[in-house]
């Protein structure tokens, strides 16, 4: 019997458990998956909670609903990986041996990286919406807020779902407009990015939207600390921004377990081959999802596309063949722009988001870099697809690697 071990049962780990259980015979292969928590959160839903569009119960389900039959599930915190000995130590002292290992422990927010961020104003006037606790607290706060300076700040790159802060300010604009108090709320987005996005065409569209909605953007902003008494933030360049409500996307880091294992970079992300998805220094370790350092978006859609590549490469590797599948960094993100509309971007390592239709040329039904009602439905439908198709590792009618079909240069 050989052992395939998956660390982390979030989006990426759960998909791999489902895909590999179908591919590997139960007579030859044990598959084990480990996670510290029993609840699966639909993280894209966190964005909607502050605005009362979703409630907590809309984004949680037991993890056990999504594991296939024939996979061993262990709920425990992972202490560390000992790659030289092909084993993993759990918190309770249990030791798991593996022949192949998949690291899928994701990324989490680390507010302690910025001085003062998690201080006396935390969850009083300083909130995050990347955790369930933060988004629920912010929903409560917005219910009775009388307005003032709303500042959304991204602490550091990289961070998961890079369009989420933009969606947040678009939704905030719509929310306060609908409540008849938009004139009392001043919205600012302070980001380390050079603009609304990184690539020219998407930056133009999204930057234009910010302007149209009277949302101020402060680019190239690298926060250094927060003053809880003055209610201001300052960046390394010395720019001070006062706030009445600060919504932060704190530094995103890989799990501390990777630091303890000596396998992470300076943000605890695992150095990974961006094409094969194999950990750079180990032949029997692969990395999927936010835990890797591959240069594309940290997003569920990326983990989904990459999971098809990874499945093929693991099978090659197990059978002693050269790895044949190569990931191109494909990302596909619906962006809510407010008032029941949205846009869509589709891109990879080398091709920037381009206008067009998706997935079918001329038909769509979704519009790339266009603001449509259909794109909003796409985003809202994603939750159903996530629970019923994506996590279960089922096929989707979208190719893993990006295609130029339907795109206009």
């Amino acid at each position: 019997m050989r052992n395939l071990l998956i660390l982390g049962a979030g989006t990426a780990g759960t998909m791999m458990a489902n895909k590999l259980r179908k591919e590997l015979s139960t007579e030859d292969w044990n598959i084990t998956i480990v996670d510290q928590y029993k609840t699966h959160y639909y993280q894209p839903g966190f964005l909607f909670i502050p605005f009362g569009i979703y409630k907590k119960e809309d984004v949680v389900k037991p993890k056990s609903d999504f594991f296939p039959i024939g996979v061993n599930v262990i709920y425990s915190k992972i202490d560390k990986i000992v790659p030289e000995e092909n084993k993993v130590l759990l918190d309770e002292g249990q030791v798991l041996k593996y022949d192949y290992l998949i690291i899928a422990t994701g990324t989490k927010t680390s507010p302690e990286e910025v001085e003062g961020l998690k201080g006396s104003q935390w969850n009083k006037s300083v909130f995050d919406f990347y955790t369930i606790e933060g988004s629920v607290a912010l929903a409560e706060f917005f219910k009775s807020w009388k307005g003032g300076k709303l500042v959304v700040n991204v602490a550091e790159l990289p961070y998961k779902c890079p369009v989420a802060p933009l969606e947040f300010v678009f939704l905030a604009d719509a929310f306060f407009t609908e409540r008849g108090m938009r004139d009392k709320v001043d919205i600012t987005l302070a980001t380390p990015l050079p603009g609304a996005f990184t690539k020219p065409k998407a930056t133009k569209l999204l930057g234009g939207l910010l302007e149209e909605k009277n949302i101020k953007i402060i680019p190239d902003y690298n926060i250094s600390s927060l003053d809880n008494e003055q209610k201001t933030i300052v960046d390394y360049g010395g720019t001070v921004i006062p706030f009445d409500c600060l919504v932060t996307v704190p530094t995103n880091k890989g799990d501390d377990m990777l630091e303890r294992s000596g396998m992470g970079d300076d943000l605890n992300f695992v150095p990974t081959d961006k094409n094969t998805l194999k950990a750079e220094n180990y032949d029997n370790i692969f990395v999927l999802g936010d835990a890797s350092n591959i240069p594309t978006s940290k997003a569920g859609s990326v983990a989904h596309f990459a999971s098809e590549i990874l499945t093929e490469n693991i099978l090659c590797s197990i059978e002693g063949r050269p790895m044949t599948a190569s990931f191109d960094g494909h990302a596909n993100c619906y962006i809510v722009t407010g008032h029941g509309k949205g846009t869509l971007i589709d891109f990879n390592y080398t091709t920037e988001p381009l206008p067009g239709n998706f997935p079918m040329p001329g038909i769509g039904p979704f519009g790339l870099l266009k603001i449509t009602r259909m794109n909003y439905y796409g985003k809202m439908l994603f939750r159903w697809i996530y629970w019923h198709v994506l996590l279960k590792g089922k096929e989707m009618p979208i190719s893993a690697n990006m295609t130029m079909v339907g795109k206009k240069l």
Partner: protein
Amino acid sequence: MAQKQFSGVTVDVNDEGYFTNSSQWTIDIAKAIAIEEGIQLSDKHIDVLSFIRKSVAGGAALTIRSMGKSGIVDVKEFYGLFPGAPLKKATKIAGVPKPTSCI
């Protein structure tokens, strides 16, 4: 491809003024670019530039954080040396490609 003259030497640059051939770089050229950016190079600046050139040659992706951990400057000092957008300015002066933010 664009070209630019620095202290009498012609180098290849892209439209944003970043070197497309890192090997054309010399300290004298760096000093000339720095003056265009309003910076007078000190020894500390040169230490930072050497670190950047070495890291990039080794395939590392530079970030503000990795500069802060370089052992040469902390993030505050880095901003002090190259005010405004330190990573963009320092890489331009160091004759290496502009770091891309992959998100």
